[in-house]
């Protein structure tokens, strides 16, 4: 696996590329060589310049200095069309297919095979699509409409489209962020097939284990500067993290031992018809309880019901002994529940609003009270409070009046956390708290959760990230198809025991039920 002596020039390369936006230096002296038959990882924290590299390859940005080279020859991409013509294809995290067209029509959009009469030759189109899928080793129906395809399937369609255009370089920008384990495995199988057929692949992921699984070499960026390119086989995950962050990252899972206090959240026989059934559990002060399970097991739905954004049909929720009415987020907040939702961009934040206003949105009443001027909001109090939280959570921002949408994913998540911690909750529910967040920020969020628990907050953490569940939780609850199937104490929680319960392979149901 070590780097062979390469005689052929790289299929696609950036050589000593720098790029600035206004006064911000996005890239500085970056060199990346993508060779045929290689999966190359691009690693770096959010804001390190990965997306700028992708967009430079894709012809969206032009380098200020340095060169883009195709087969060793310097080229200038005047736009994405040039890059496409040179054989570069980008697969984004969330593909953009035409939902009402069939898979085959999507793949051959604008290049449909014609019959002698000039009409679209559907049969040929379907046959060629089937051929592509066979080559990629996936089972998809060419005639199926794109609407309703899973994100994983949509990515496969995008890849097929790229191959049909004779793409020689595939750039995959965080393709696995929204995929389940099985889907990731299939994507990797497809990727290996392409690699063996002579494609060059650039792979970006926040999940280090994926880099180690599929990539041969890795180029690391930090704050827009080029750190180095190395063989993956020569690195440990810790080495890679150290290169990305530039300092020793504190332990990724800094769970402190705590003695749980009294019950803060008590959920009894909670049922929402067709969604989840008979869910009962407790979360004590100082405890982090993880709610694990496969995507679609009903975990987020339970959280939504507890917080009141959805109604429940039967059962009860108590916070510090007080029963909550169903379907009222306002009542849940008043009782001390905070929910950091799954979908940051839709549910967690108002993307067009400023950082400070987003943080203040949960405390409009107290921003008001603090003024002592009747119902008016004090912008000063709002800003001071936001500045305070920004400091505590080490938010990286330019101005508090900037819209929250310009922040990186990790920093956006910190704003959501700040917005909820500012309500001084007794129970904090976090749904996928570190999804799509870089490794440094992830460790910060974990440390924060751990400290909050140590300060007697009750935390319910929903997570699909097994190492996170095992690393952070005092107890692991597992859901399968809308029911709690296991309650596993920290000492007994392993990947195997959690996965067994999550897939319904366990016979023994914990005391939870």
């Amino acid at each position, binding site marked *: 696996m070590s780097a062979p002596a390469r005689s052929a020039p790289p299929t696609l390369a950036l050589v000593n590329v720098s790029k600035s936006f206004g006064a911000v230096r996005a890239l500085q002296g970056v060199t990346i060589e993508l060779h045929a038959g290689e999966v190359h990882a691009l690693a770096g924290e959010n804001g390190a310049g990965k997306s700028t590299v992708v967009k430079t390859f894709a012809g969206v940005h032009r380098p200020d200095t340095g060169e883009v080279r195709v087969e060793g020859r310097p080229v200038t991409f005047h736009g994405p069309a040039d890059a496409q013509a040179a054989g570069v294809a980008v697969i984004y995290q969330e593909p953009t297919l035409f939902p009402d067209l069939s898979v085959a029509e999507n793949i051959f959009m604008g290049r449909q095979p014609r019959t002698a009469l000039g009409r679209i030759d559907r049969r040929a189109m379907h046959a060629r699509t089937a051929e592509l899928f066979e080559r990629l080793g996936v089972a998809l129906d060419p005639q199926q409409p794109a609407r309703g395809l899973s994100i994983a399937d949509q990515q496969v369609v995008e890849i097929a489209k790229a191959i049909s255009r004779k793409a020689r370089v595939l750039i995959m920008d965080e393709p696995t962020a929204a995929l389940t384990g099985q889907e990731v495995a299939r994507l990797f199988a497809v990727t290996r097939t392409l690699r063996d057929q002579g494609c060059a692949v650039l792979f970006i992921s926040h999940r280090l284990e994926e880099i180690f699984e599929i990539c041969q070499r890795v180029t690391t960026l930090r704050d827009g500067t080029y750190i180095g390119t190395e063989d993956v086989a020569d690195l440990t995950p810790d080495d890679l993290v150290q290169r990305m962050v530039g300092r020793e990252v504190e332990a990724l899972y800094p769970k402190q031992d705590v003695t749980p206090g009294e019950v803060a959240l008590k959920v009894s026989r909670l049922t929402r018809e067709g969604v989840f059934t008979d869910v009962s559990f407790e979360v004590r002060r100082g405890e982090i309880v993880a709610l694990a399970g496969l995507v679609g097991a009903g975990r987020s739905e339970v959280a939504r019901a507890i917080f009141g954004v959805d109604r429940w049909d039967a059962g009860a929720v108590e916070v510090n002994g007080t029963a909550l009415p169903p379907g009222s987020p306002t009542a849940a907040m008043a009782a001390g529940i905070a929910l950091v939702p799954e979908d940051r961009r839709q549910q967690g934040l108002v993307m067009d*609003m400023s950082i400070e206003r987003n943080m203040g949105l949960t405390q409009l009443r107290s921003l008001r*009270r603090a003024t002592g001027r009747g119902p008016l909001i004090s912008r000063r109090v709002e800003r001071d409070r936001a500045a305070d939280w920004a400091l505590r959570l080490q938010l990286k921002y330019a101005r508090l009046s900037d819209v929250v949408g310009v922040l990186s994913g990790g920093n956006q998540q910190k704003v959501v956390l700040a917005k909820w911690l500012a309500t001084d909750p007794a129970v904090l529910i976090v749904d996928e708290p570190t999804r799509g967040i870089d490794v440094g920020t992830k460790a910060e969020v974990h440390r924060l959760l751990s400290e909050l628990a140590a300060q007697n907050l009750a935390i319910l953490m929903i997570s699909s990230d097994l190492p996170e569940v095992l690393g952070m939780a005092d107890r692991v609850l597992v859901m399968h198809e809308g029911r709690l199937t296991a309650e596993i104490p920290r000492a007994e929680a392993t990947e195997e025991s959690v996965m067994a319960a999550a897939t319904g392979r366990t016979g023994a149901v914990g005391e939870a039920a």
Partner: protein
Amino acid sequence: MADRGAVGGRPPTGNRADRGAVGGRPPTGNTADRGAVGGRPPTGNTAGSKQGGFEVGRLVRWDVVVAALLIVVFFGGVGLSPDFGNTDNISFALGDLSEIALIALPMTLLVVCGQVDLSVASVLGLSSALVGKLWDGGMAIETIIPLVLVVGLVCGLVNGVLVTRLGLPSLAVTIGTMTLYRGLAYVVLGTEAVSQFPQQYTDLAVNNVPGTPIPYPIALFAVLALTTAVVLHATGVGRSLFAIGAQEEAAYFAGIRVKRLKLILFVLSGLVASFAGIVYTLRYGSARADNGLGLELTVIAAVLLGGVDFDGGKGTLGGVLAGVLLIGVMRNLLMLNDVANEIQSIVTGLLLVVSVLTPRVIAIVREVRSRGGGSGAPAAAKAAS
């Protein structure tokens, strides 16, 4: 999008040092403990960040543009027609705006919150018809007014309930009730007209506040406009409306009572529209079922012209004020110069199209510039969604 954020959000190097402070207990509005954490002025960070040239265009706000346009048109008008600047004409022009201006206030709140009420002119007509019918039937004006206001409130309540409880889009609901309420107006009064209202009340609708060129309804509007501006821009309710308009789901997840607020706005809109109906009836001294036909479009035109985003989440009351006045000034100028009615409506229409279009065009130009050329992917994304 994400990329631009990543580039902008470079670490302000000052932050790393004080890691120990993180995770301290939430402040709960207690100012005393802020000092302990070392609450640094937020401006400290600004120095380290560089925003580059993108921001410059954003400083030119649409509402300011409209206000400037208003001033230009106003003084242009003074130069153009000698009658325009005299006190009587200004007073008349203002009075002529009464209903539009009043209804524009709740309409602004609705549009900011991502909703719209097309039934306002019909509520105005229904109220006018009711005033006529009841006055004709011998009821005292003092009884009629509260009664009609209650009817307006109920009209608004119906809109609000249909939108919030049944989850229907407000555009569809109020297109329906627009026809419904106008129909009811004809049921009440048919095609007749009722006039001869008591002088003391018609005077109140027409006369100026003593010593000023400002008619009473406009004086009332000024007070209400100030209140609305404060509510929209300086209270939690205002913040909530902007949040709902910008991203309703996130607002709901932040514990904002989305449905309740929307309901209140629709009720308010109906109430103000029926009050405008009373003003209209008294001002013209004539109650008719077709009073104020088409007025809703002028109101919405003024609101959009004032820079409120029809998609919700953006806008200022100052902008709407400028928009209302600009429409009033234009109408008055065209009238003074004997321009035909059709041309007047064409001008209003053009103004509206321009006001909706210009910010979009600016946004697109800005986007193209910052991306350094269009790309195929976003276009496909738009087509697919």
